[in-house]
């Protein structure tokens, strides 16, 4: 990280808790760059997170108000904070298991209500901190601590989920595309109303090792190779979209037109029984 952003880090916090090769450090950098480029008043900046590796992206690292909450509840806490003081810029940063599984209800309802929040989902396709259990974003067939024979269940497409729930702005980029990712975060923060950024952030320790990505580079290559811009995806047949990482930005207008929304479907899996 360039030293320019040291001013945004809490003094005394020397090292992150992230494993070597974790994508969350890149995301932390992207968030700080977005905050810096937008010139946000840090005294009016509140970060809210839940439980899990991604919840540590803001807490304790970022030198701003940070509220490190319970597993899954970050969006509900953030809603209360934003309503109590609308002058605050409130940014939720948490993981896929936290925001979408345990906190799924809060996520869709905050989107429905249109509360002016920015929610950044550090999506590593697995429960990292608690030991590599499958989550609602784990790919079909992927090995996890709780799916030793491959995940049989369909995967949530967070873009469709949150857009369908009423978000004003939704974007998806991987940490391997830091510039568009950062621009999407900036746009999300500037969006009045509920904005959501799904950031694909590889987890070498829990996801990579179990799924035979022998080194970090191979896992990042996978993420890079899965990327498909939404414009390109719109021209491909459905059969070619399964498992791909369709990236881009979406607004409610896309819902109305029905075009460009990824339809990667549940894949070949299904419940084991």
């Amino acid at each position: 990280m360039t030293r320019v952003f040291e001013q945004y880090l809490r003094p005394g916090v020397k090292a992150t808790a992230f494993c070597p090769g974790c994508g969350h450090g890149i995301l932390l950098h992207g968030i700080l760059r977005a905050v810096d480029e937008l010139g946000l008043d840090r005294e009016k900046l509140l970060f809210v997170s839940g439980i899990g590796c991604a919840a540590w992206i803001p807490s304790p690292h970022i030198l701003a108000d940070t509220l490190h909450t319970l597993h899954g509840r970050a969006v509900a806490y953030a809603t209360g904070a934003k309503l109590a003081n609308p002058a605050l810029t409130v940014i939720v940063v948490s993981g896929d298991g936290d925001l979408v599984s345990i906190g799924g209800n809060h996520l869709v309802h905050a989107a429905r209500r249109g509360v002016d929040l920015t929610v950044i989902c550090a999506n590593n396709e697995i429960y990292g901190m608690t030991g590599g259990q499958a989550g609602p974003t784990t790919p079909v067939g992927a090995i996890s601590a709780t799916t030793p024979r491959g995940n049989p269940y369909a995967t949530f497409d967070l873009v469709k989920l949150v857009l369908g729930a009423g978000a004003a702005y939704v974007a998806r980029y991987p940490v391997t595309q830091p510039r568009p990712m950062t621009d999407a975060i900036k746009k999300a923060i500037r969006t009045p109303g509920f904005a959501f950024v799904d950031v694909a952030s590889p987890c070498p320790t829990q996801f990579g090792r179990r799924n035979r990505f022998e080194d970090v580079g191979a896992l990042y290559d996978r993420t890079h190779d899965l990327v498909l811009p939404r414009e390109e995806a719109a021209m491909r047949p459905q059969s070619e979209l399964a498992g791909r990482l369709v990236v881009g930005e979406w607004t409610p207008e896309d819902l109305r037109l029905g075009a460009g929304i990824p339809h990667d479907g549940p894949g070949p899996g299904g419940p084991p029984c």
Partner: protein
Amino acid sequence: METLAELLPRAGGVFVQMEDEIASISAVIGASWTGAKAMTATSGPGFSLMMEALGYAVFTETPCVIVDVQRAGPCTGQATRVGGGDVMQCKWGMHGDVEIVALAPWSVQEMYDLSVRAFNVAERLRLPVFLMADEAVGHLHETAEFHDRIAVEQRDRRKGFPPFGHGDPGGVPPMPCFGDGENLLVTGSTHDERGYRKVEEPQVHARLVERLRQKVLLRRDELVDVERYMLDDAETVIVAYGFTARGALAAARELRGRGRKVGLLRLRTLWPFADKEVAALDGRARRVFVPEMNHGQVLGEVRKHFRGDVAGYGQTDGEVIPVGTIVREVERLT
């Protein structure tokens, strides 16, 4: 809550109906840290759902008020009928050892007065305060007096002090809020006085848990609130709270009319428990009788502190305990 939805926005406040009770208490905590006086109200299973976040409120020293209009449980139970089975839950329902403050109103007037008190105590001590009402009080219509001016405890928002530490064992640190420029670090994990996570250090955890307990216990004399009726020469003392205490008062008067020396010790606070006040009955009263809409949740506490005869009457059928039942039970004892 329907009334608050109408009135709060008119008074410059905010009302939001969240998606569930977990979200409600979570939003309350978020709002409190942003400087607002915040509350929620629930009953039965909704109260159970809030337990995890209530532990968070205790541990992060977040002022807030929770109104629990107790109904007949367990589970969904009798959704619109009365119960009193949450007395222990508000104290012990959160995992880990906590001390909280719980008030027990018995009238519409006290729903008002004790709500004000609950907010003031919550702000002064930085903790969740429970208004443990019951359905009979919750659905009561009654003449009550509302005041033009009320004494309101303002939060100590001084900056520059550690927001989670205090030199005194039961000290309450100042609580600046989000947006005050303090770069607050708030976590539900064990934390040091500045909010840094310190989950590996036994002394930090022990010191924090103990201070949070002593915050309440050292102030028990100012917190514990009882009312005494006809106790001077009472041989039998009824200890009661909430709606049941009104039946107990009527029963005590009726028994006095029959020449029985009966009095009432009414608990207006459930927690911290009125241990000294109950113990003070020793040597004067011969027996204590505890009627309640559960199977002995306060009875057990009374037994710990009164050495004479203690008997209870537990009723959990979704109905209030009739005055006649209390009269009958006391006469049976004497």
